[in-house]
């Protein structure tokens, strides 16, 4: 091969490389979480060992264990994810999926995949993204802002109680946050399976984390694929913190909260 041909080949490669990548959806084969780059190829092997039993070989949530799991495993082909930092309707950030794998989803069959290394979890995220075309066609929206927490005071808790009433949270979560509101029997997930609202009295962990910031994020972004909507249009940051402070008082072990609240992140990203 002459130098001329090599030059032409190099120039053509440089010019076409971005097109080749974007047109083939090659970016969707990777995940980026901080300094970690996950590869779908490696993630596929891990998925076949750890995830396929529930989420199925096609990622549609129809694994052999799915019949025995309630709520049903996530169908990755829909591209809808509960735990996101992004607004309702947006695909999640890679780091959101990474955090979910490490944290698990409390009150569901999804365990904390803490025994896997961060690199392995990043690889799994890259592979999970290949099940939905949304990760090729769309970009995630900017994450919802989380304002600095306001002081926890009796007044803040009282105001939070009023926010809970005015936003009509009790329609699903009930007057006392027990998940027994009047709409419960009409609730279905995105695959038309019956789904129950969260019962705040059962523990300190929520589906998408356990810190105050996690709780703030949950009702601001909503949990896509479930009936839980996004309240970001309806509350100010101060009201959102008031609501967090009130929701904490519904928990059976309220008071122990301060010992555990800031442990989030250490678990997911360790």
């Amino acid at each position: 091969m002459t130098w001329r041909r090599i030059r032409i080949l190099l120039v053509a490669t440089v010019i076409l490389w971005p097109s080749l990548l974007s047109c083939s959806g090659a970016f969707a084969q990777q995940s980026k979480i901080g300094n970690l780059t996950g590869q779908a190829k490696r993630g596929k092997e891990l998925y076949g060992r750890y995830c396929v039993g529930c989420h199925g070989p096609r990622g549609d949530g129809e694994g052999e264990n799915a019949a025995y799991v309630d709520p049903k495993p996530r169908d990755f082909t829909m591209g809808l994810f509960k735990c996101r930092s992004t607004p309702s309707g947006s695909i999640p950030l890679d780091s959101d999926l990474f955090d979910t794998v490490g944290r698990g989803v409390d009150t569901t069959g999804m365990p904390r995949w803490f025994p896997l290394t961060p690199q392995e979890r990043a690889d799994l995220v890259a592979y999970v993204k290949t099940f939905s075309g949304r990760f090729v066609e769309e970009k995630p929206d900017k994450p919802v802002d989380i304002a600095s927490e306001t002081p926890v005071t009796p007044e803040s808790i009282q105001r939070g109680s009023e926010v809970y009433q005015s936003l009509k949270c009790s329609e699903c979560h009930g007057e006392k946050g027990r998940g027994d509101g009047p709409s419960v029997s009409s609730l279905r997930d995105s695959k038309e399976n019956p789904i129950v609202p969260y019962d705040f009295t059962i523990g300190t962990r929520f589906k998408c984390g356990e810190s105050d910031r996690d709780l703030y994020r949950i009702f601001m972004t909503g949990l896509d694929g479930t009936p839980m909507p996004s309240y970001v249009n309806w509350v100010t940051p101060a009201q959102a913190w008031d609501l967090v402070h009130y929701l904490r008082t519904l928990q059976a072990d309220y008071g122990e909260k301060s010992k555990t609240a800031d442990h989030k992140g250490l678990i997911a990203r360790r």
Partner: protein
Amino acid sequence: MGIFIKNRRAIFGLVLCLAAVSCAGRAAAQSDYTTITVGDAGTISGTVRWAGPIPKIPRLPITKNAEVCNPDGEKTRDLERLLVDADGGVANTVVYLKNITQGKAMDLPEARQHLDQKSCRYIPHILLVAQGADLQVKSSDAILHTVHMAGAVSNNIPFPFQNQYIPIAMRRSGVVDLKCNAGHVWMNAEALVVKNPYYAVTDDHGFFKLTDVPPGEYEIEAWHEGWRIASEQKVLDVGSQVEVSRPVYSAPVTWAKKVVVRKGQTSDVQFSISEN
């Protein structure tokens, strides 16, 4: 060696071609409609009529917030999935040109881009929004509603307060199903997110009209959301002992025809739709 180099060249060439075709296809898909100044345009009008016996669509009991949802004292609510007038005209059918690539600028009816939740009913029942535009949504009811969208656009926004518009960005084209998760299981609507303005929703008498159509031959299609209930899942609320069924609707149905549009003339298209 000579053969090797030849093959390598061929492979390189093939890769270039594939990349070009793939990217060109994608680019075409992203910009498959061009706005032009439409002179010498024609009009298409017609009706969509029901043929044969009209199927009986079940009504759902109003099981929640009767004071707001049931102002007329009816105990049940029509699902609005199939509306046929005395002359057989079918309302809420979307008629559109399937293969149009250029024409007028977006001018979808304003009323189809605003959604109200009133007496636990979506008004209007069929929405038409340009891809990339916002659907403006409000609630006239002093109770909680949620607008849970699934399909081409997914979104889940609550409406705890009255009369405040919230814009919802409709980014992807296609069909979007709407439902309420606040216990009003009968509430349903469909939004079509579209790439060109040649869409019309039939009125109460099944009438439609597409204006400013560049002359030419087109495929015209009538789209109906589907009127059957495909399945129902009943859940008993142990506390209140109220059993609630949530309907899952059958898939949309379409009927296609050819139409020729001539300068300054109105082309008549009649659709006859039926159970089979």
